[in-house]
């Protein structure tokens, strides 16, 4: 979608900060087991203790190498996150198999890194990869059942699993919140207003000229639409895109009153593009066919996390060109949305566009 949500740096900074946080979490997770593993390495000179120490060093080395690469490129490829899960699951399976029933030297250093692998998947790949994120937890829970061991201690097992799930959920929620609050500045309307002010300050414009006043009005309407939509949250891409539509149509001479509120922050690109295209058609129709000077453009989020856009003109109310109605309907149908056009002579035309995820 060609949305000019500018200052991409804000989002990049948040992604970098999240990656560093996950890396620090991994350092803490390996660090907390380090004293116990070191004691075993020094005091117990058996094959079992050597296996525990070797597995720990293997996990530590992998994590160090992985995060060194991730931090260098500031991104997490899917295969790397999957490999991280694979490594911890392999260790959690191989280690108890190698130790068998002899778990006197057992140091469960994998608990923390298993959570770390889950968090990395959730933070970098999103909730769609929950099944991959769940593997380290399942793998950790299976440890007591591998090899010939006494019956598992259920309270410990259930408590451990609940703790892992809770920590992972908390991390995913925190990452989502940080991303939402990554402030982005919608450049086009602000740049336009700045440029208008600059031209006026430069003395090159006749303030009484109709086109200058119209331009000032367009800038004011765009900014007001943005400010109205902002309730402490950052502007969504859809808000910025629709503000642009309002401003574009205003350039045709149509005064558009923006009424924006709490549009969902994560609308799929194709849905946003469909709303932009359909809204543009509806406003163009109002400008060209309804012969009105004003239109009202309402864009709000619905309780079902969908989007509702209503374009109202108070023109003569002749039915819009059927080609326009069909084009709007086709655009909305493609994304599973709906459109309703209501036009009554003397009462103007209303176009309603809705989409529910």
């Amino acid at each position, binding site marked *: 979608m060609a949305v000019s949500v500018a200052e991409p740096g804000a989002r990049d900074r948040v992604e970098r900060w999240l990656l560093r946080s996950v890396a620090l979490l991994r350092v803490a997770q390996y660090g907390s087991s380090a004293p116990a593993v070191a004691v075993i390495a020094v005091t117990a000179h058996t094959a079992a203790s050597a296996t525990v120490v070797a597995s720990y060093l293997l996990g530590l080395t992998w994590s160090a190498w992985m995060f060194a690469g991730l931090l260098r490129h500031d991104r997490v490829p899917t295969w790397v996150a999957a490999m991280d899960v694979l490594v911890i699951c392999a260790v959690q399976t191989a280690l108890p198999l190698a130790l068998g029933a002899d778990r006197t030297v057992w140091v469960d250093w994998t608990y923390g890194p298993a959570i770390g692998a889950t968090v990395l998947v959730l933070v970098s790949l999103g909730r769609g990869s929950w099944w991959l994120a769940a593997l380290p937890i399942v793998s950790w829970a299976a440890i007591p059942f591998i090899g010939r061991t006494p019956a598992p201690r259920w309270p410990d097992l259930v408590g451990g699993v609940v703790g892992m799930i809770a920590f992972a959920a908390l991390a995913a929620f925190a990452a989502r919140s940080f991303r939402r609050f990554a402030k982005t500045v919608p450049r086009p309307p602000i740049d336009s207003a700045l440029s208008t002010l600059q031209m006026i300050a430069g003395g090159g414009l006749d303030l009484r000229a109709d086109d200058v006043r119209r331009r000032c*009005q367009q800038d*004011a*309407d765009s900014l*007001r639409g943005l*400010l*109205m939509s902002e*309730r402490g949250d950052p502007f969504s891409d859809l808000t910025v895109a629709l503000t642009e539509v309002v401003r574009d149509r205003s350039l045709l001479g149509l*005064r558009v*009153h923006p*009424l924006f*509120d*709490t549009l969902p922050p994560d609308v799929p690109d194709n849905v946003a593009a469909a709303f932009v295209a359909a809204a543009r058609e509806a406003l163009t129709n109002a400008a060209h066919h309804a012969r009105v000077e004003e*239109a*009202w*453009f*309402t864009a*709000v989020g619905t309780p079902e996390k969908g989007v509702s856009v*209503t374009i*109202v003109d*108070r023109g003569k109310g002749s039915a819009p060109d059927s080609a326009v109605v069909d084009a709007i309907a086709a655009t909305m149908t493609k994304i599973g949305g709906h459109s309703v056009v*209501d036009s*009554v002579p003397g*009462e*103007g035309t*209303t176009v309603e566009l809705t989409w529910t995820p």
Partner: protein
Amino acid sequence: MDTLIRLAIIDDEELLLDAMRITVGQIADMDLTATAATVRAYLDTEAAADVVLLDLNLRDYSKPAANVAALVAAGVKVVVFSVHADHEHVLATTEAGACAYVLKSGTNTTELMEVVREVARGGSPMTAEHAFSLSRDNRSRRPHLSPREREVLHMYATGRTLQTTARRLNISDSTARTHLQRIKEKYQAVGRPINHRTDYTLRHQEDNFGQETMGSTPDEPV
């Protein structure tokens, strides 16, 4: 309209006040009785006005809702005239008793004066922006609106005319207008908050108790 409407304007933009003096001076049924930069300055003038056009954010950092409440307590009808359409401000000033909320942006003098006339007649005009903010009120302490009131509000809030709103809902224009009036009354009924100690004074004045006790000493029982 035969009756002369006494109008006052409170705005901290001197340019706007100058322009309004010229504009209102040419309107036959309007008499600009006072202009002021703050509500306190206006109240100090003791000018008589039927309707006050009030800018939302004044440079004395006074609270918009407190300003509206103080003017309502002084017995004038308030039309908020602002560049802002933030939901928070619209809701707060409506609850404080503002009769109408009009945006400076894009409202021409004719439209503004029509709103003033309707308010002076005792009407309760509602702009689409005003209705929109009320329709998006998701606070826990919002007034309870009936399903029909919500339908009228949501439909009118998209910019539809009263006639179109009424037709879509199969009700008469006057019924739709009554619903909008009732909605505003419900907001005003719950809009007597005490969020700050100064609000006690405002509520006190609104209840007409303040006038009796202004002259009393702190030791005298109220």
